[in-house]
């Protein structure tokens, strides 16, 4: 099984795990007030609701210093968080592949080092071409 094939299966499985619940959920039921109930609420919010049923008299004693003014702004900031992470991973992938490409010709030119055969980071560059 090639690396590319294996990576494809991994990515497909992650996508399936995210998409299947969306399909299974169907239509939201309509509440007594005629408004459709919201599906896929955050589990953190549900936990806060559970706290209110367990301890109805509990009042949060501190509120957030800053709350995004709308869900749009909130999703903007979540996207920013993911973008920072994805940006760095992208930088690393480019850096690592570029480094591997530079090293192989050098190593081959100098001498037939056994390191080339054993250290997978150098020799598997051909796979990298296909996997990413």
């Amino acid at each position, binding site marked *: 099984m090639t*690396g590319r094939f*294996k*990576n494809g299966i*991994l990515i497909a*499985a*992650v996508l399936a*795990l*995210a998409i*299947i*619940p*969306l399909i*299974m*959920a169907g239509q939201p039921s309509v509440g007594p007030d005629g408004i459709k109930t919201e*599906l*896929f*609420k*955050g*589990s*953190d*919010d*549900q*936990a*806060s609701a*559970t*706290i209110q049923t*367990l*301890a109805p008299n*509990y009042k*949060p*004693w*501190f*509120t*957030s*210093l*800053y*709350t*995004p003014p709308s869900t749009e702004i*909130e999703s903007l900031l*979540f*996207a920013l*968080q*993911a973008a*920072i*992470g*994805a940006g*760095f*991973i992208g930088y*690393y*992938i480019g*850096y*690592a592949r570029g480094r591997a490409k530079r090293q192989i010709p050098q190593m081959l030119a100098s001498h037939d080092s056994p390191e080339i055969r*054993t*250290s*997978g*980071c*150098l020799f*598997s560059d051909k*796979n*990298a071409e296909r*996997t990413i």
Partner: protein
Amino acid sequence: MHIMEGFLPVAHAASWGAVSTLCVGFGLRSISRAVKDKPELKMLLGVSTAFTFILSALKLPSVTGSCSHPTGTGLGAILFGPLAMAPISAIVLLFQALLLAHGGITTLGANVFSMGVVGPIVGYGIYRLGRAVALPTGLTIFLAAALADLATYITTACQLAMAFPDPTGGFSASLVKFLGVFAITQIPLAISEGLLTVLIYSFIQKHSGQELTSLGFNLSGGEERI
């Protein structure tokens, strides 16, 4: 796993804060030691941090009809040991507490403890165990990351049950309720996190073999390869 701002009684918030401060301190020491000896590890440390940034921003739908997010801490725990993820998680959680009103300053200690301490310890423990009983590397990485994710959410449920015991059933009845909110929703997400961690680990292994070797991974024997 984010306990919302103000949703832990003062005594609980302060205790978790104290424990987590200690863990973040130990974590910073372990990171600075690793990086001082081998500056080339900074890149992988950055990758571990970035992975946590991405995964904890992904709110994914789950079979229970609610949404939750993975944590991304398993990768760093496998690479750098369990302590290193406490400060990294603290950075991510602080970002979310200050800018997103997700979690909070008063609950930061409790959230760092579940995401940055318990999750990574479980992940690292599973990883060592998997190696010890010679499970295939891919499976070991998958289990370590998935169970680190799940352990984080179970910890959050325990923290909430301790703070808000059921008026009649006490801690255990309350724990069942909070586990009902967190644990089952989290199972498919933990699987996703395990799969994504295997994906990134296999790339790191392929392209940063030297750094992994300097972290003590025995790649030449082939047994730690995916």
